[in-house]
């Protein structure tokens, strides 16, 4: 079953390359939406069905932690899994985000197969 994915990152180049890597990985993707911060991400999810969010952490206006809080408080969005994609490779940051409701955590740089495996784990896709 193909999944609709939302990529959230304030860097347009990074959004493009994540979509590119996602395509290279062979992940079964239907739609791929883009947002440049948490506010845009929330607006997109209220307009379109999204199965999974891939989100940066450090963003202007509403960052990744703010996005997790807003989604948790919204009954319609609370169940949408979020995988954080960040350059911060420290375990403290990963633990903090997971405790706030993130379902997965990927550190840049990452291989296409790593990304696919993490998304399929979160979506409980059986290989």
């Amino acid at each position, binding site marked *: 079953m193909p999944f609709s994915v939302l990529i959230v990152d304030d860097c347009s180049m990074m959004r493009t390359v994540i979509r590119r890597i996602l395509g290279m990985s062979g992940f079964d993707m239907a739609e791929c939406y883009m947002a440049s911060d948490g506010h845009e991400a929330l607006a997109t999810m209220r307009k379109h069905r999204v199965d999974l969010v891939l989100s940066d952490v450090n963003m202007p206006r509403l960052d990744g932690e703010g996005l997790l809080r807003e989604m948790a408080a919204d009954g319609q969005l609370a169940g949408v899994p979020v995988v954080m994609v960040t350059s*911060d*490779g*420290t375990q403290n940051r990963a633990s903090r985000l997971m405790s706030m409701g993130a379902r997965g955590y990927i550190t840049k*740089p990452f291989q296409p197969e790593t990304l696919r495996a993490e998304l399929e784990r979160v979506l409980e896709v059986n290989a």
Partner: protein
Amino acid sequence: MTAADELLDSVVSDVLETMFFSGVFGPGTQTDGPHLAARVSFTGSHQGALEVAATEATARALAGSFLGVMEDEVPEGQAPALLGEMANVLCGAVLGRMEPQGRFLIAPPEAASGEDPGGVKHVFELAEGWLSVSWRVE
């Protein structure tokens, strides 16, 4: 070669190959002349900065590889953004390997003057040209 040198070399190779679809041939030589530079600063368990520099031609070629487009299709202004994003990814990767239990706040990338920020500096030879990476931690 010190541990800091080895860490920087290892991270640069991994990041370039994995996310920028490029590769390091070996040590390079920085040429005189105009170039672009981007820096990210960090605070927390340690403070410091990481800076990358390259000629505009090299940055455009790397941006093309990164985006999966021909070099002449790279949108205007994306070469400096490429170096900023590269500095951000390199900095996070270096900190994560140097101190996995650390707590850091990495500031957004900013354009830099290209002057030597001190600390460890390596110049790499890529297919696209030279790339300089400077790393300072306190």
